């Protein structure tokens, strides 16, 4: 058994890194290459590795990724984002939620499906946008400043909505408000408890002499909140995100080598395995490109663009800059894939048609479309803005 497992890991990690490198060289996100590695080795092509064989490692990858997002969450940046960031997140979400709800209702689906759809299509993943902005030498522009700070507040709002949604939805996709609200209260009490107690635990561990004791304790605390979140019926990743926020209050972890160590093995091993694991599960035969898929892509991209424009304008940003921010925040990527996985897990087998025939194609096509569309539109937009000169 261990031999098969090790061989699966070797093949998957090696191919994921090779494909990731090729994609990076072609200025495409490495994670797309990593997913492709999974597609080649999995159900779709060679059928060499089954998703179940590395599922736990992939889950650890997603937990650590989300921990890092939470750990780097900063109140200062959240304040910087101010009302523009807040309106951007709320309107980006609501403008996708409302029309999609009516479409889903017409095909017999409910509000929960619309919420997951809005969490995927109302959010964005910005590494590529920032890469384009850096290439165009506009990193100091107002547009770039808003994009960078707004994503922080959006993460907080989206993961809170995600936590609430997951808590309110029972195992069979049935909404139960009584139990759900109880779970939310318990989870946030535990989260606050961890935020208060963990600095003391970490401070105590500073005096422990066994090898990497503090690192192990920090790691255990991440897993603990992920575990608590999962047994309460939330997704473990939601727990990991909030564990990140809680542990960031410990000076020893914030300043020391804890987060670089976690980042090393997450970015080096676990995150590529997670994206490759996603690829292992993609079965082209399930891919449907029905009219509804294209309608939802249109709504996802269009409504989000309008919602963001409105959010920026209400936050006091000029029309021109609002347009630039909205174009920059069109891109979909890793974070959307992550919510996709949570949606599949929470909604269960009863919604596999919804996930396979709607969510997966809509997310992947939107990712690829915006990957090319957003940089192109940003280049056009920044034509009117002066280029930055190097100071150093």
């Amino acid at each position, binding site marked *: 058994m261990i031999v098969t497992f090790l061989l699966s890991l070797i093949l998957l990690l090696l191919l994921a890194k090779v494909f990731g490198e090729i994609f*990076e060289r072609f200025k495409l996100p*490495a*994670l797309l290459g990593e997913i492709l590695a999974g597609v080649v080795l999995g159900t779709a092509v060679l059928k060499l590795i089954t998703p179940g064989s590395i599922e736990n490692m992939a889950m650890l990858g997603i937990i650590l*990724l989300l921990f*890092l*997002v939470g750990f*780097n969450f900063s109140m200062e940046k959240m304040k910087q984002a101010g009302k523009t960031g807040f309106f951007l997140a709320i309107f980006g979400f609501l403008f996708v939620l409302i029309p999609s709800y009516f479409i889903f209702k017409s095909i017999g689906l409910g509000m929960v499906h619309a919420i997951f759809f809005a969490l995927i299509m109302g959010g964005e*993943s*910005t*590494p*590529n*946008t*920032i*890469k384009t902005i*850096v290439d165009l030498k506009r*990193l*100091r522009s107002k547009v770039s400043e808003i994009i*960078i700070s707004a*994503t*922080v507040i959006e*993460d907080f709002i989206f993961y809170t909505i995600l936590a609430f949604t997951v808590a309110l939805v029972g195992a069979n996709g049935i909404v139960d408000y009584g139990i759900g609200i109880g779970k939310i209260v318990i989870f946030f009490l535990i989260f606050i408890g961890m935020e208060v107690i963990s600095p003391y635990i970490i401070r105590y561990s*500073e005096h422990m002499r066994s090898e990497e004791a*503090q690192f192990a304790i920090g790691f255990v605390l991440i897993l603990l909140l992920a575990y608590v979140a999962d047994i309460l019926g939330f997704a473990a990743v939601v727990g990991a995100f909030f564990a990140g926020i809680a542990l960031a209050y410990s*000076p*020893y972890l*914030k*300043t*020391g*080598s804890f987060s670089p160590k976690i980042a090393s093995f997450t*970015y080096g091993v676990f*995150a590529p395995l997670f994206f490759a694991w996603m690829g292992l599960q993609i079965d082209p035969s399930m891919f449907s490109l029905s009219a509804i898929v294209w309608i939802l892509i249109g709504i996802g991209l269009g409504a989000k663009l309008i919602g963001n424009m409105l959010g920026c304008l209400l936050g006091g940003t000029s029309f021109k800059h609002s347009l630039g921010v909205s174009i920059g925040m069109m891109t979909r*990527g*890793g*974070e959307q894939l992550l919510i996709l996985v949570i949606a599949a897990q929470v909604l269960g087998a009863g919604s596999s048609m919804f996930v396979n025939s709607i969510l997966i194609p809509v997310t992947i096509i939107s990712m690829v479309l915006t990957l090319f569309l957003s940089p192109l539109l940003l280049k056009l937009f920044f034509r009117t803005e002066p280029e930055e000169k190097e*100071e*150093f």
Partner: protein
Amino acid sequence: MRHIANLQVKNIMRNFKTVKETAKISEVIKTFNSSKTDAVAVVNSKGKFVGDIHQHDLLKLLIDPKDISWDEVTGVFGRIVDMGYFAETAKDLMHRHELTVTPETSVREVVSLMFKHNIDALPVLKGEKIVGMITEMELLNKILKGGKK
């Protein structure tokens, strides 16, 4: 020489330099040039300590982000842009130090912190006010001089 470990930070810390967080990189370089220190403290407009810059952080200015993984610059999801690679001001380049020491902290404790957490410099704070910086270079100088002042 081991008696150095029992000294307090206030016994060995020297004059330190501060720069404002809005200071241009050229000003930061000038500060390093005009002093013998290997780390400067960064303060905000109210004079409150907000971070520090170590000499070797300046090397980051020579790195082209295109030569390294983009994930290192923005994180996988693009949520944390490391402005150090594009630094124009002290704020972009500085480390935010949550770990600080007081003038009464022992050198033994300081070295232990530096060793365990891979830190080259620690700010010395009295309340919220910065009163010094203790750096690896200073400690090494002390050891090399056999603990003499």
